[in-house]
């Protein structure tokens, strides 16, 4: 047994060296918004809950009406984003405060859903919009596991289901128009524009009326940054924004996976090691293999 054990250790050392060298990859870099990034800025102090945005979005995206709100057959009453609803207004109300909040895809700068998708059906495209291509989608729903904002919705009621989520009206953007929701909003509570401009606008509003807002632009840093930004007069947690850590969601998984699989060197090295050991073992005992 000594020969094979020695060769085993030799092989292990070789494999370890081989796999460590390429695996000393730099930590995954922080992604930045693309130079032509667009986005939206939503200000809770301006929203009146008229839901014109939900209606305009449904018309522009040819979405069906919700017909079973609250499980009670309530018409046009989505309880949140769902397979027919790409944007929704929710209400937070407690004893002291109340606020509306508009929910839709946040178009993250480093999206978790894009990191999940096997065939890049979800990808970050022109203007930094996170788009969906059903032709590449197998309906695995891993994107739903990944998204920290619970955005992508699956057409559970459909026998040929797709994923449904706001795509910032990218067809309209291509024609030089605005997204439907920002165009229709009567109070300019949600506005569209160049991402850098919106960030400045948000900072300006915070500076001009510091007592009116919680002093944070949600989406500036959270989860790697999002291209949809929020200003609020109530704490963001109460509006359903659960997370405030700045690290992008895919960071940990991809750092590990890339570290292990970088250049595919480690698997190849391991394979070579396994083969080498087996070869040695077979030789040492003179047995035929199964």
């Amino acid at each position, binding site marked *: 047994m000594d020969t094979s054990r020695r060769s085993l250790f030799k092989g292990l050392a070789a494999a370890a060296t081989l796999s460590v060298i390429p695996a000393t990859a730099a930590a995954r870099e922080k992604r930045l918004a693309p130079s032509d990034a667009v986005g939206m800025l939503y200000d809770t102090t301006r929203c009146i*809950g008229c*839901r*014109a945005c939900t209606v305009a979005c449904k018309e522009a995206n040819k979405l069906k009406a919700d017909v079973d709100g609250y499980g009670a057959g309530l018409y046009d009453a989505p309880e949140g984003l769902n397979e027919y609803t790409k944007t929704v*207004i929710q209400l937070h109300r407690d004893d002291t405060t109340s606020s509306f909040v508009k929910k839709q895809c946040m178009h993250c700068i480093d999206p978790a859903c894009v990191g999940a998708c096997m065939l890049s059906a979800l990808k970050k495209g022109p203007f930094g919009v996170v788009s969906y291509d059903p032709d590449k989608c197998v309906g695995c729903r891993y994107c739903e596991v990944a998204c920290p904002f619970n955005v992508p919705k699956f057409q559970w009621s459909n026998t040929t289901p797709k994923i449904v989520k706001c795509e910032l009206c990218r067809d309209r953007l291509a024609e030089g128009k605005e997204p439907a929701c920002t165009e229709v909003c009567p109070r300019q509570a949600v506005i569209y524009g160049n991402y850098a401009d919106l960030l400045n606008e948000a900072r300006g509003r915070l500076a001009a009326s510091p007592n009116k807002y919680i002093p944070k632009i949600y989406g500036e840093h959270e989860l790697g940054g999002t291209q949809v930004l929020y200003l609020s007069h109530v704490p963001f947690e109460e509006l359903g924004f659960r997370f405030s850590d700045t690290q992008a969601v895919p960071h940990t998984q991809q750092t590990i996976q890339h570290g292990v699989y970088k250049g595919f060197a480690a698997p190849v090295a391991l394979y070579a090691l396994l083969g080498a050991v087996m070869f040695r073992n077979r030789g040492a005992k003179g047995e035929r293999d199964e």
Partner: protein
Amino acid sequence: MREQLTIAQQLERSGVSRRHFMTFCGKLMVAAPFGLAITSSLSPAAVAATVGRARRPSVIWLHMQDCTGCTETLLRTSQPDLASLLFDVISLDYHETVMAASGTDAEAALHDAMDQNDGKFILVVEGSIPTKENGAYLKIAGRNGIDMLRDVASRSAAVISMGSCASWGGLPSTTINPTGATGVDSIVKGKPIVNLPGCPPNPYVFFATVLEYASTGKPPKVDALGRPKFAYDRTIHDHCPRRAHFDAGRFAGQFGDSGHRSGWCLYKLGCKGPVTHAPCSTRHFNEVVDAWPIGIGHPCVGCTEKDIAFTIPVHTTVNIERPMPPDTYPAINAEHAGISPLATGVAGIVGGALIGAGLLASRNLSNEPKE
């Protein structure tokens, strides 16, 4: 002191048809469906009986800096007979526009009316009162408006400020206010004052207020600005017939566009409905349905509100400070479908059975004869 007849007696004396009076009472019920004692009955006949029992109120009507619109609103009825009925329901003892007398006869009429109904008449004021230059901008029969108002008011039972001008100064009081125009309650103290702002206000709101006082001896309940709650406790927006369009995001963009022609919400054209307290959404004018600004396709200008009317430009959109969301907004964390108890039961039974079978099998294995 002359004792007034009851309204029923006066109507009989004038030969007013009962149908006309019932129609009038029906309109009172529409004008004040709640909040007043006189309309708390369930039928026009019952209201007619209540109102009929009241003493015909003596009303002295003073004009200050006015346009007479608030008088016109009483007279612009669709059915002329009703206009005349009004003068049977109230005893309009002094009114510069409609009274027959003029000159010294008119002044005499005023003093006679005050003497005969001392402490019992209702003073109605129309128009703002100028206060600059010691009230020199308004003089009637040699007295300025301030003194006249104070004098007549001191002998009245109650005061009604008819219209925005009398309520808070109205149009003349805006911008530079060259005459120092002000409302009645800045001048008159110590008397019950009911403000009926509007430019003009709804005539049936006026009648309901007067008859409530005549019938119960008390003015209707008022809000912090002295406005009767039965008419001014809601905004135009709250009862607007076009509210569904607002809620659905259907707005007219320009006068004459397809949205405007479809009767969509006029908010984007500057409608002040969301911030204007007034009864106009449900009580229209001239006894014609939809005879009111929004009804004919023009945004509300907020004529009852001191901070809005003639201050914020007509076509400037106004901020909505007090959105009234319907209760079917989804919560931040909605409850989604629950767990099927049947499935839990099945899974539990199957899982338990498998574990049980495994343990049984292991026991059998232990008890096997050794190899």
